[in-house]
């Protein structure tokens, strides 16, 4: 047995995890590349495939031209390089290569990278080493060149936001004076125009909330109640901004985030083994917001990576659900904020079970507590343990399994599923995984109900020897 292979030991000393088909497909930027990548996920067009101890994979893919495309993927990133002209990211060749890797282990010889792959991989590692050295820390690159000018810019922007908030207060007051019933007739234009004013005031957070008010009007039974709730919260945000000097620092940071001022991740970085719990995209006007939920094994923290893709382009950041990455995360400021920025990655580690969970009965209180730090929170992440999906009058709910063990029982506690979850195919995956028995499920609990994002297959864990279920199943 070879004790050393002359270079550095494999990262984190853990076995390098191979991504599964589902995980790879989740990286596809759109359905077309998913389909194209799937077609390339067979040995047919590939040659010269290989992988190394860090998990990097490479191969030559025969295309329509005479020279095959050179594709290489570094899963610590993940980062992709391909000689094809595609502007999609990752391209179909990278997806195909990863799919082949996922389904056909025999096709990959463990070897030293081919020259062309080695060049790129070495370049990446050299860059990674540079940025992680203390002399060239990530912060200094982003830091302002002229602090005085930057402060002046920030003050000007704050003034504009203040103007916007005051104008918005005026509009809300007018609205309440005339009555919400009138908005039903005035239509969408009212809100669009106000939202545009908030964009001008450089307060995108206010603009987004105003636009949402427009969607509530006439959105079905009970809309006046929902509209009044959101108007109240928007008013609270205006008032908080206008009085932010008197707020404690964390709450003031939360208010700045909610209003839409750019903040940068500044907390001390947390290195941990982060389990990727969920990744999903939310269309937001012309851009797409991608949310990735992580759970830190050592720290017990839950963190949210937020990234954006402009005009039809998916966000570049993508992590395979179910993988565990050894990485540094830098938290953003603000009370009750889970958002963080992904820093240096040290490699992937083998899959592991779900985070420790709580009962459905305890979940609303967790959300309630989080509201103390951020009253504008719609929902808060929780892992529910041993819950059973149950059909209810107007949808589905998840009920605690252990409140009363026999079927037909109506005691114990349950959480209704959020309306958004009811139309998603993931609902049926959750029900299938449960089979009427208890499952562990990660999602968000909020005033609209529980929205499940990922569950752990209870059937698999039994055979695998794990007590809490096997692999993660994506529900979004």
């Amino acid at each position, binding site marked *: 047995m070879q004790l050393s292979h002359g270079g550095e030991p494999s990262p984190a000393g853990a076995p390098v995890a191979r991504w*599964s*088909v*589902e995980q790879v*497909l989740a990286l596809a930027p759109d*359905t077309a590349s*998913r*389909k194209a990548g*799937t*077609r*390339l*996920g*067979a*040995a*047919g*067009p590939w040659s010269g495939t290989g992988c190394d101890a860090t998990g990097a994979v490479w191969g030559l893919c025969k295309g329509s031209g005479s020279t095959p495309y050179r594709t290489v993927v570094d899963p610590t990133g993940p980062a992709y390089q391909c000689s094809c002209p595609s502007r999609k990211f990752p391209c179909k060749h990278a997806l195909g290569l990863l799919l082949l890797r996922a*389904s*056909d282990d025999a096709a990959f010889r463990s070897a030293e990278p081919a020259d062309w792959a080695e060049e790129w991989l070495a370049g990446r590692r050299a860059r990674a080493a540079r940025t992680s050295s203390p002399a060239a820390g990530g912060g200094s690159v982003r830091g302002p060149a002229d602090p005085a000018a930057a402060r002046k810019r920030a003050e000007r922007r704050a003034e504009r936001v203040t103007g916007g908030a005051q104008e918005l207060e005026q509009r*809300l*007051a*007018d609205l*309440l*004076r005339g*009555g*919400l*019933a*009138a908005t039903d007739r005035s239509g969408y234009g009212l809100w669009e125009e106000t939202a545009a004013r908030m964009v001008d005031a450089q307060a995108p957070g206010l603009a987004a909330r105003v636009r949402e008010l427009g969607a509530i009007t006439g959105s079905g039974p009970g809309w*006046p109640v929902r*509209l*009044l*709730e959101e*108007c*109240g*919260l928007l*008013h*609270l945000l205006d*008032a908080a901004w206008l009085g932010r000097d008197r707020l404690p620092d964390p709450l003031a940071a939360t208010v700045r985030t909610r209003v839409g001022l750019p903040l940068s991740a500044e907390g001390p970085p947390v290195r941990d083994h982060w389990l990727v719990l969920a990744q999903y995209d939310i269309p937001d006007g012309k851009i797409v917001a991608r949310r990735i939920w992580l759970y830190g094994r050592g720290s017990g923290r839950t963190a949210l990576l937020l990234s954006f893709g402009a005009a039809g382009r998916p966000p570049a950041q993508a992590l395979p659900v179910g993988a565990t990455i050894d990485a540094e995360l830098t938290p953003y400021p603000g009370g009750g904020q889970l958002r963080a920025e992904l820093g240096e990655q040290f490699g992937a580690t083998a899959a592991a079970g779900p985070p420790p969970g709580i009962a459905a009965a305890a979940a609303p209180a967790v959300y*309630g507590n989080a509201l103390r730090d951020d*009253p504008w929170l719609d929902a808060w992440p929780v892992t529910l343990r041993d819950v*059973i999906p*149950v*059909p209810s*009058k107007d949808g589905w709910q998840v*009920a605690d399994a252990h409140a009363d063990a026999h079927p*037909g*029982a*109506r005691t*114990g*506690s*349950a959480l*209704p599923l959020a309306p958004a979850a009811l139309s998603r*195919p993931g609902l*049926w995956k959750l029900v*299938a*995984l449960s*089979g*009427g028995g208890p499952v562990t499920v990660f999602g968000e609990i909020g*005033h609209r109900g529980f929205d499940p994002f990922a569950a752990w297959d209870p*059937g*698999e864990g039994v*055979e695998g020897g794990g007590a809490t279920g096997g692999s993660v199943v994506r529900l979004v």
Partner: protein
Amino acid sequence: MPHTTSPTAPTTASASASVDSLPWEELVTSALLGTDRRPPAPRGDPGPADAPAALLDAAALHTVRRRAGLLPAVPEARPEPAAPDPRPALPEAARHRLAHLLADRSAPSGAGRRGTAPDLTELIPQWLAIANRRGFRAPAALLPPLLDAARARTDLRPQALAFAGPRGMWLAGLNPDWKFALRGAASGAPQTDLTDPDAVARLWEEGLFAERVALLDAVRAQDPPAALALLATTWPTERAEDRLMFLDSLRSGLSGFDEPFLEQALSDRSRNVRATAAELLSALPGSALAARMAARALSCVHPDRTGDVASISVEAPHECDADMQRDGVMAVPPTGRGERSWWLGQLVEATPLGVWEERFGGRPAEEIVALPVADDWADELHTAWCRAAVRQRNPRWSRALLGRPSEPVASGPGTASIAERSKLLAVLGEGERASWVAEFIAEHGLSEAFQLLGVCTVPWAGPLGRAVVDALDIARDGGSYPWSFSGVMGLAERCLDPAEADRLEVLTAAQDEQEGASPGAGGYWSEAFQRLVSTLRLRAAMEAELMA
């Protein structure tokens, strides 16, 4: 926040305190109607000076308070848990493969040209068949896409539902989109214990129609006479369409034992029941009905020794009497057919084939089929013999009527119809079937082979596979486009033995453009063969994963 100093109006602070104490419903009413019309204030109090702001303050407070104070819901009645599925879980690689196959299915199909990559959707049936043979349990998370696939493609349903197992049925019970799965299950295995005669009798008396059909099938599978006895208990009181369905159940495991019952059914009130009973009896060459039909047919078809060579003379029946009709002969021909030839066809079809060997001096079937037939009756007679060979599952006559595969299609002694030939082939053993079709393809090419290939056992036997590939190679050399053969090509992707992949590799090379060939055909052929090879490799990999 602006303050007012008017002595009569309360200060904003105290106003909002009182507004805060209003019930939520009153705040909503105020907001809906407008604070000008309906100021938010406790009864009797004048509204606060800055009513909108006070209302919004109160609304925010209420909203956050309500959200922070949410309570869990009362659980509804739980569904009965799914029955356990004792089958072992799939090997990991096979599970990934299934996810891959099902994901490809749901993705939108690409452009018209297929390229070199395998069509994964076409491989789902094969994957399911192997998985079911190996007795694996379906992964729970893949049940929804599996049921969706089965919903979209009826041909997938039996295998998909078997694979989905009890968890799949349980899930289908909760989603109306998957109702089809429950329909399948209802006519499946009956829940009754077949060893308990009282339970069987009760279900037979009281069950729903589908349950009774399933019960009859199940009893017949174990003990055919018992099924007949069960059927006889209620036969006269059943409705005509039900009698027809029950009679159909006798088709499996048909034997001489069923003859008395069927003979009795020949005088049934319903014409369809009579016809079905006659058809079943004629499939029993030893039955009395077969003998009666033989006697009638023999009076119509004679050896003719008047000429130099032996031949067959035919005198079609002149009438269709009541006895003939009772034995299932239909008197009225379909439009465009002569009465007498119609009757003749039915008589010959129901006559045991062995009779003819005796009638023509002990000649074997091949020779009888080759005898000339007088007065243009040959087609009529041969077609009827084909139907008889299929109905009686007689390989000797099937072989004779098929003729030698190398003979020109039109001038053979037997049938020229490809549809009839594929039915006759199905009577033969799989090895014989494959070599017959292989020889046919070697002689006549692929243009008519599609239907014949459809009755061959998968994967294709070596000689058959080679014949198909050689024919494709010849078609390429002939300069035609591969999509003229896309049907056979697709069939080859699914049916060729994966072990052929290595031998096929040489065909994937692009060839030089030949004179007279269709432009670009060489490139398309190379692409088509690449797809064939990669599909075969993929099938081999799929199979290996499921064998792991």
